[in-house]
Protein backbone atom coordinates (compact mmCIF):
# COMPACT_ATOMS: atom_id res chain seq x y z
CA UNK A 1 0.00 0.00 0.00
CA UNK A 2 1.09 3.56 -0.68
CA UNK A 3 2.15 5.59 2.37
CA UNK A 4 2.34 8.85 0.47
CA UNK A 5 1.51 10.00 -3.04
CA UNK A 6 2.78 13.25 -4.52
CA UNK A 7 1.78 14.58 -7.94
CA UNK A 8 3.54 17.39 -9.78
CA UNK A 9 1.04 19.19 -12.03
CA UNK A 10 0.34 22.37 -13.98
CA UNK A 11 -2.91 24.31 -14.42
CA UNK A 12 -3.35 23.36 -18.07
CA UNK A 13 -2.26 19.72 -18.17
CA UNK A 14 -5.10 17.37 -19.14
CA UNK A 15 -3.18 14.24 -18.14
CA UNK A 16 -2.66 15.64 -14.63
CA UNK A 17 -6.43 15.69 -14.27
CA UNK A 18 -6.56 12.04 -15.32
CA UNK A 19 -4.09 10.99 -12.62
CA UNK A 20 -5.91 13.00 -9.93
CA UNK A 21 -9.27 11.61 -10.98
CA UNK A 22 -7.96 8.04 -11.02
CA UNK A 23 -6.43 8.37 -7.55
CA UNK A 24 -9.59 10.03 -6.24
CA UNK A 25 -11.80 7.26 -7.66
CA UNK A 26 -9.58 4.64 -6.00
CA UNK A 27 -9.77 6.45 -2.67
CA UNK A 28 -6.13 7.52 -2.50
CA UNK A 29 -5.15 10.78 -0.86
CA UNK A 30 -2.36 12.72 -2.50
CA UNK A 31 -0.35 15.90 -2.23
CA UNK A 32 -0.45 18.06 -5.35
CA UNK A 33 2.46 20.32 -6.20
CA UNK A 34 1.33 22.70 -8.93
CA UNK A 35 4.43 24.13 -10.56
CA UNK A 36 2.45 26.99 -12.09
CA UNK A 37 1.71 28.08 -8.53
CA UNK A 38 5.04 26.95 -7.09
CA UNK A 39 7.55 27.45 -9.92
CA UNK A 40 10.48 27.06 -7.53
CA UNK A 41 9.58 23.37 -7.22
CA UNK A 42 9.87 22.51 -10.92
CA UNK A 43 13.57 21.64 -10.48
CA UNK A 44 12.47 19.09 -7.89
CA UNK A 45 10.13 17.46 -10.43
CA UNK A 46 12.92 17.41 -13.00
CA UNK A 47 15.40 15.82 -10.62
CA UNK A 48 12.93 13.13 -9.56
CA UNK A 49 11.77 12.22 -13.06
CA UNK A 50 14.64 13.31 -15.30
CA UNK A 51 11.96 14.71 -17.59
CA UNK A 52 10.61 18.17 -18.34
CA UNK A 53 7.00 17.14 -18.25
CA UNK A 54 4.01 16.63 -15.99
CA UNK A 55 2.28 14.82 -14.47
CA UNK A 56 4.97 13.22 -12.36
CA UNK A 57 3.53 10.93 -9.71
CA UNK A 58 5.70 9.73 -6.83
CA UNK A 59 4.33 6.77 -4.88
CA UNK A 60 6.10 6.09 -1.58
CA UNK A 61 5.31 2.71 -0.04
CA UNK A 62 5.36 1.64 3.61
CA UNK A 63 8.98 0.41 3.29
CA UNK A 64 9.93 3.84 1.85
CA UNK A 65 10.61 2.41 -1.60
CA UNK A 66 9.37 4.70 -4.35
CA UNK A 67 7.90 4.47 -7.84
CA UNK A 68 8.05 7.48 -10.13
CA UNK A 69 5.51 7.53 -12.93
CA UNK A 70 5.96 10.08 -15.70
CA UNK A 71 2.81 11.05 -17.60
CA UNK A 72 -0.61 9.39 -17.53
CA UNK A 73 0.50 5.78 -17.60
CA UNK A 74 -2.09 3.50 -16.05
CA UNK A 75 -0.05 0.35 -16.69
CA UNK A 76 2.64 1.75 -14.36
CA UNK A 77 0.44 3.69 -11.96
CA UNK A 78 -1.98 0.89 -11.03
CA UNK A 79 0.67 -1.65 -9.96
CA UNK A 80 2.67 1.06 -8.15
CA UNK A 81 -0.32 1.70 -5.90
CA UNK A 82 -0.33 -1.95 -4.80
Amino acid sequence: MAKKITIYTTNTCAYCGMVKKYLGNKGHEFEEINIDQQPHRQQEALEISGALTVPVTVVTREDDSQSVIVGWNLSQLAPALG
Partner: protein
Amino acid sequence: MSEQKVNDLVIIGAGPAALSAAIYTTREDIQTLLYEKAVPGGLISTTDWVDNYPGFPDGIAGLELAENMRKQAERFGAVIEMGEVTDVKKEANGNIKLDTTDGEVFAKTVLIATGSGYRKIGVPGEEEYYARGVHYCATCDGAFYRDKKLVVVGGGNSAVQEAIFLTRFASHIDMLVRSDFRASDILVDRLEKEFKDKITVHKQTTTDQIIGEKIDNIDRVTKVVGTDKASGKQVEFQTDGVFVFVGLDPNTGFLKETAVELDEIDFVKSDDSLETSISGVFVAGDCRSGATMQIATAVGEGATAALRIREYLEG
Protein backbone atom coordinates in the same frame (compact mmCIF):
# COMPACT_ATOMS: atom_id res chain seq x y z
CA MET B 1 -21.24 -21.11 -18.50
CA SER B 2 -22.47 -17.54 -18.27
CA GLU B 3 -23.65 -15.86 -21.44
CA GLN B 4 -21.31 -13.30 -23.00
CA LYS B 5 -22.42 -9.71 -22.65
CA VAL B 6 -22.78 -8.18 -26.11
CA ASN B 7 -22.72 -4.38 -26.10
CA ASP B 8 -24.93 -2.52 -28.56
CA LEU B 9 -22.02 -0.26 -29.46
CA VAL B 10 -18.39 -0.04 -28.46
CA ILE B 11 -16.62 3.15 -29.45
CA ILE B 12 -12.84 3.03 -29.63
CA GLY B 13 -11.64 6.45 -28.49
CA ALA B 14 -13.26 9.25 -26.53
CA GLY B 15 -12.44 12.36 -28.51
CA PRO B 16 -14.92 14.74 -30.16
CA ALA B 17 -16.12 12.26 -32.82
CA ALA B 18 -16.56 9.51 -30.23
CA LEU B 19 -18.31 11.67 -27.66
CA SER B 20 -20.59 13.24 -30.27
CA ALA B 21 -21.59 9.76 -31.47
CA ALA B 22 -22.14 8.66 -27.86
CA ILE B 23 -24.44 11.62 -27.16
CA TYR B 24 -26.58 10.60 -30.14
CA THR B 25 -26.61 6.86 -29.50
CA THR B 26 -27.30 7.04 -25.78
CA ARG B 27 -30.18 9.44 -26.40
CA GLU B 28 -31.56 6.75 -28.74
CA ASP B 29 -31.22 4.23 -25.89
CA ILE B 30 -28.41 2.41 -27.65
CA GLN B 31 -26.16 1.08 -24.88
CA THR B 32 -22.74 2.60 -25.52
CA LEU B 33 -19.33 1.77 -24.07
CA LEU B 34 -16.25 3.82 -24.93
CA TYR B 35 -12.62 2.71 -24.60
CA GLU B 36 -10.05 5.46 -24.18
CA LYS B 37 -6.35 4.78 -23.72
CA ALA B 38 -5.22 8.32 -22.95
CA VAL B 39 -7.53 11.18 -22.03
CA PRO B 40 -11.23 11.75 -22.81
CA GLY B 41 -11.45 14.63 -25.25
CA GLY B 42 -8.39 13.47 -27.14
CA LEU B 43 -6.10 16.10 -28.61
CA ILE B 44 -8.39 18.99 -27.72
CA SER B 45 -7.71 18.24 -24.04
CA THR B 46 -4.14 19.30 -24.59
CA THR B 47 -4.98 22.27 -26.82
CA ASP B 48 -4.70 25.60 -25.06
CA TRP B 49 -7.52 27.42 -26.75
CA VAL B 50 -10.17 26.63 -29.38
CA ASP B 51 -11.46 29.60 -31.36
CA ASN B 52 -13.14 27.90 -34.32
CA TYR B 53 -15.74 25.65 -32.71
CA PRO B 54 -19.24 27.11 -33.10
CA GLY B 55 -21.19 28.19 -30.06
CA PHE B 56 -18.35 29.86 -28.18
CA PRO B 57 -18.10 33.46 -29.41
CA ASP B 58 -15.05 34.19 -27.28
CA GLY B 59 -13.45 30.77 -27.81
CA ILE B 60 -13.06 28.10 -25.13
CA ALA B 61 -10.17 26.30 -23.43
CA GLY B 62 -9.61 22.93 -25.10
CA LEU B 63 -9.69 21.11 -21.79
CA GLU B 64 -13.01 22.74 -20.85
CA LEU B 65 -14.56 21.87 -24.22
CA ALA B 66 -13.41 18.26 -23.81
CA GLU B 67 -14.81 18.09 -20.28
CA ASN B 68 -18.14 19.51 -21.45
CA MET B 69 -18.40 16.90 -24.21
CA ARG B 70 -17.54 14.09 -21.79
CA LYS B 71 -20.10 15.24 -19.23
CA GLN B 72 -22.78 15.58 -21.90
CA ALA B 73 -22.18 12.02 -23.14
CA GLU B 74 -22.12 10.62 -19.60
CA ARG B 75 -25.33 12.48 -18.71
CA PHE B 76 -27.18 10.29 -21.19
CA GLY B 77 -25.55 7.09 -19.99
CA ALA B 78 -22.36 6.65 -21.98
CA VAL B 79 -19.74 4.69 -20.05
CA ILE B 80 -16.07 5.49 -20.58
CA GLU B 81 -13.57 2.78 -19.67
CA MET B 82 -9.86 3.49 -19.52
CA GLY B 83 -8.14 0.86 -21.61
CA GLU B 84 -6.70 0.02 -24.98
CA VAL B 85 -8.21 -1.97 -27.81
CA THR B 86 -5.64 -4.15 -29.54
CA ASP B 87 -7.69 -6.16 -32.07
CA VAL B 88 -11.03 -6.03 -33.89
CA LYS B 89 -12.54 -9.16 -35.40
CA LYS B 90 -15.93 -10.14 -36.85
CA GLU B 91 -17.26 -13.36 -35.35
CA ALA B 92 -19.18 -16.03 -37.26
CA ASN B 93 -22.34 -15.11 -35.30
CA GLY B 94 -22.18 -11.51 -36.59
CA ASN B 95 -20.92 -9.98 -33.37
CA ILE B 96 -17.63 -8.13 -33.22
CA LYS B 97 -14.94 -9.24 -30.80
CA LEU B 98 -12.51 -6.70 -29.42
CA ASP B 99 -9.33 -7.61 -27.60
CA THR B 100 -8.69 -5.02 -24.92
CA THR B 101 -6.29 -4.55 -22.04
CA ASP B 102 -9.23 -5.67 -19.85
CA GLY B 103 -9.84 -8.84 -21.87
CA GLU B 104 -12.32 -9.68 -24.60
CA VAL B 105 -15.30 -7.39 -25.21
CA PHE B 106 -18.17 -8.14 -27.60
CA ALA B 107 -20.36 -5.73 -29.54
CA LYS B 108 -23.08 -5.65 -32.17
CA THR B 109 -21.47 -2.54 -33.67
CA VAL B 110 -18.16 -0.73 -33.29
CA LEU B 111 -17.17 2.84 -34.02
CA ILE B 112 -13.48 3.52 -34.59
CA ALA B 113 -12.85 7.09 -33.45
CA THR B 114 -9.26 6.94 -32.30
CA GLY B 115 -8.32 10.31 -33.77
CA SER B 116 -4.78 11.31 -34.45
CA GLY B 117 -1.59 12.19 -32.67
CA TYR B 118 1.10 14.76 -33.31
CA ARG B 119 3.48 13.69 -36.05
CA LYS B 120 7.18 13.45 -35.36
CA ILE B 121 9.70 15.23 -37.57
CA GLY B 122 11.96 12.18 -37.77
CA VAL B 123 15.30 13.92 -37.27
CA PRO B 124 18.33 12.92 -35.18
CA GLY B 125 17.93 13.90 -31.54
CA GLU B 126 14.12 13.98 -31.60
CA GLU B 127 13.61 10.60 -29.96
CA GLU B 128 16.71 10.83 -27.77
CA TYR B 129 15.55 14.06 -26.13
CA TYR B 130 11.82 13.28 -25.96
CA ALA B 131 10.42 14.87 -22.77
CA ARG B 132 13.94 16.11 -22.02
CA GLY B 133 13.75 19.07 -24.35
CA VAL B 134 11.61 17.77 -27.22
CA HIS B 135 7.88 18.10 -26.64
CA TYR B 136 4.53 17.74 -28.40
CA CYS B 137 2.24 19.18 -25.70
CA ALA B 138 2.62 22.84 -24.82
CA THR B 139 -0.06 22.81 -22.12
CA CYS B 140 1.68 19.89 -20.38
CA ASP B 141 5.30 20.92 -20.63
CA GLY B 142 5.44 24.65 -21.35
CA ALA B 143 5.71 25.58 -17.67
CA PHE B 144 9.22 24.13 -17.54
CA TYR B 145 10.44 26.88 -19.85
CA ARG B 146 9.92 30.04 -17.80
CA ASP B 147 12.31 32.70 -19.10
CA LYS B 148 13.95 30.15 -21.42
CA LYS B 149 14.49 30.16 -25.16
CA LEU B 150 12.40 27.83 -27.28
CA VAL B 151 12.10 26.59 -30.84
CA VAL B 152 8.65 25.78 -32.23
CA VAL B 153 8.59 23.66 -35.40
CA GLY B 154 5.60 23.92 -37.76
CA GLY B 155 3.46 26.44 -39.59
CA GLY B 156 -0.11 25.18 -39.20
CA ASN B 157 -2.86 26.25 -36.82
CA SER B 158 -1.56 24.13 -33.93
CA ALA B 159 1.98 25.44 -34.30
CA VAL B 160 0.88 29.09 -34.27
CA GLN B 161 -1.68 28.60 -31.49
CA GLU B 162 0.73 26.74 -29.27
CA ALA B 163 3.63 29.13 -29.98
CA ILE B 164 1.40 31.96 -28.80
CA PHE B 165 0.55 29.94 -25.68
CA LEU B 166 4.25 29.31 -24.99
CA THR B 167 4.98 33.06 -24.89
CA ARG B 168 3.43 32.93 -21.39
CA PHE B 169 6.61 31.20 -20.30
CA ALA B 170 9.42 31.57 -22.83
CA SER B 171 11.63 34.64 -23.11
CA HIS B 172 11.88 34.15 -26.87
CA ILE B 173 10.70 31.68 -29.50
CA ASP B 174 12.26 30.90 -32.88
CA MET B 175 9.56 29.44 -35.10
CA LEU B 176 10.86 27.21 -37.91
CA VAL B 177 8.43 26.91 -40.82
CA ARG B 178 9.50 24.50 -43.54
CA SER B 179 7.75 26.42 -46.32
CA ASP B 180 5.11 29.07 -45.54
CA PHE B 181 2.34 29.33 -42.96
CA ARG B 182 -0.62 26.99 -43.43
CA ALA B 183 -2.36 28.45 -40.38
CA SER B 184 -5.46 30.59 -40.78
CA ASP B 185 -4.86 34.24 -41.69
CA ILE B 186 -6.40 35.47 -38.44
CA LEU B 187 -3.96 33.45 -36.34
CA VAL B 188 -0.94 34.47 -38.42
CA ASP B 189 -2.04 38.09 -38.25
CA ARG B 190 -2.31 37.87 -34.47
CA LEU B 191 1.11 36.28 -34.20
CA GLU B 192 2.73 38.90 -36.42
CA LYS B 193 1.06 41.88 -34.74
CA GLU B 194 0.82 40.96 -31.08
CA PHE B 195 3.79 38.63 -30.61
CA LYS B 196 6.44 39.88 -33.01
CA ASP B 197 8.73 40.87 -30.13
CA LYS B 198 8.66 37.38 -28.64
CA ILE B 199 8.36 35.15 -31.70
CA THR B 200 10.78 35.31 -34.62
CA VAL B 201 9.48 33.43 -37.65
CA HIS B 202 11.96 31.70 -39.96
CA LYS B 203 10.12 30.63 -43.10
CA GLN B 204 11.64 28.26 -45.67
CA THR B 205 13.67 26.74 -42.85
CA THR B 206 13.92 23.02 -42.26
CA THR B 207 14.66 21.35 -38.95
CA ASP B 208 17.47 18.86 -39.48
CA GLN B 209 18.89 17.94 -36.10
CA ILE B 210 18.29 18.47 -32.39
CA ILE B 211 21.45 18.63 -30.34
CA GLY B 212 21.90 18.47 -26.58
CA GLU B 213 24.32 17.74 -23.80
CA LYS B 214 24.36 16.71 -20.15
CA ILE B 215 23.80 19.70 -17.89
CA ASP B 216 23.91 19.03 -14.12
CA ASN B 217 23.81 15.33 -15.01
CA ILE B 218 20.51 15.66 -16.92
CA ASP B 219 20.24 15.44 -20.71
CA ARG B 220 19.13 18.82 -22.07
CA VAL B 221 18.59 20.24 -25.55
CA THR B 222 20.95 23.08 -26.42
CA LYS B 223 20.42 23.84 -30.10
CA VAL B 224 18.55 23.05 -33.28
CA VAL B 225 20.30 22.83 -36.61
CA GLY B 226 18.34 23.56 -39.77
CA THR B 227 18.71 24.69 -43.36
CA ASP B 228 17.66 28.01 -44.82
CA LYS B 229 16.17 26.74 -48.08
CA ALA B 230 16.53 30.11 -49.81
CA SER B 231 20.30 30.29 -49.36
CA GLY B 232 20.97 26.59 -48.86
CA LYS B 233 23.04 27.46 -45.80
CA GLN B 234 22.98 25.70 -42.44
CA VAL B 235 21.44 27.70 -39.63
CA GLU B 236 21.61 27.13 -35.89
CA PHE B 237 19.26 28.18 -33.10
CA GLN B 238 20.42 28.11 -29.49
CA THR B 239 17.51 26.86 -27.42
CA ASP B 240 16.47 25.20 -24.18
CA GLY B 241 13.68 23.17 -25.77
CA VAL B 242 11.80 22.28 -28.94
CA PHE B 243 8.04 21.99 -29.37
CA VAL B 244 6.94 20.12 -32.50
CA PHE B 245 3.62 20.67 -34.29
CA VAL B 246 4.11 19.44 -37.85
CA GLY B 247 0.83 17.71 -38.54
CA LEU B 248 -1.12 14.70 -37.41
CA ASP B 249 -0.88 10.95 -37.91
CA PRO B 250 -3.88 8.64 -37.41
CA ASN B 251 -3.97 6.42 -34.32
CA THR B 252 -4.57 3.26 -36.32
CA GLY B 253 -1.52 1.11 -35.58
CA PHE B 254 -3.69 -1.46 -33.77
CA LEU B 255 -5.71 -2.03 -36.97
CA LYS B 256 -2.80 -2.99 -39.23
CA GLU B 257 -3.20 -6.71 -38.65
CA THR B 258 -6.99 -6.64 -38.79
CA ALA B 259 -9.49 -6.87 -41.65
CA VAL B 260 -10.25 -3.15 -41.31
CA GLU B 261 -8.89 -1.69 -44.53
CA LEU B 262 -6.55 1.30 -44.30
CA ASP B 263 -5.47 3.67 -47.06
CA GLU B 264 -1.84 4.08 -48.13
CA ILE B 265 -1.15 6.53 -45.28
CA ASP B 266 -2.90 4.42 -42.62
CA PHE B 267 -6.23 6.23 -42.37
CA VAL B 268 -9.34 4.00 -42.13
CA LYS B 269 -11.23 3.59 -45.40
CA SER B 270 -15.01 3.87 -45.32
CA ASP B 271 -18.02 4.04 -47.62
CA ASP B 272 -20.59 6.86 -47.80
CA SER B 273 -22.29 5.60 -44.64
CA LEU B 274 -18.95 5.67 -42.74
CA GLU B 275 -18.90 1.86 -42.58
CA THR B 276 -15.48 0.23 -42.88
CA SER B 277 -14.50 -2.94 -44.72
CA ILE B 278 -15.98 -4.91 -41.79
CA SER B 279 -19.78 -4.86 -41.70
CA GLY B 280 -20.97 -3.25 -38.47
CA VAL B 281 -17.67 -1.47 -37.87
CA PHE B 282 -17.88 2.27 -38.55
CA VAL B 283 -15.33 5.09 -38.46
CA ALA B 284 -15.53 8.82 -37.71
CA GLY B 285 -13.22 11.74 -37.12
CA ASP B 286 -9.53 12.36 -37.65
CA CYS B 287 -8.58 8.72 -38.26
CA ARG B 288 -10.97 8.38 -41.25
CA SER B 289 -9.53 8.53 -44.77
CA GLY B 290 -10.47 11.95 -46.13
CA ALA B 291 -10.94 13.57 -42.72
CA THR B 292 -10.43 17.32 -42.57
CA MET B 293 -8.95 17.21 -39.04
CA GLN B 294 -11.26 19.76 -37.46
CA ILE B 295 -13.19 19.45 -34.20
CA ALA B 296 -16.39 20.59 -35.90
CA THR B 297 -16.12 18.00 -38.66
CA ALA B 298 -15.22 15.24 -36.21
CA VAL B 299 -18.32 16.08 -34.19
CA GLY B 300 -20.42 16.03 -37.37
CA GLU B 301 -19.02 12.69 -38.46
CA GLY B 302 -19.65 11.26 -35.01
CA ALA B 303 -23.31 12.25 -35.27
CA THR B 304 -23.58 10.83 -38.79
CA ALA B 305 -21.98 7.57 -37.71
CA ALA B 306 -24.40 7.33 -34.79
CA LEU B 307 -27.38 7.60 -37.14
CA ARG B 308 -25.90 4.94 -39.47
CA ILE B 309 -25.25 2.68 -36.49
CA ARG B 310 -28.87 3.06 -35.40
CA GLU B 311 -30.01 2.06 -38.91
CA TYR B 312 -27.64 -0.93 -38.83
CA LEU B 313 -28.93 -2.08 -35.44
CA GLU B 314 -32.52 -1.73 -36.60
CA GLY B 315 -31.64 -4.00 -39.51
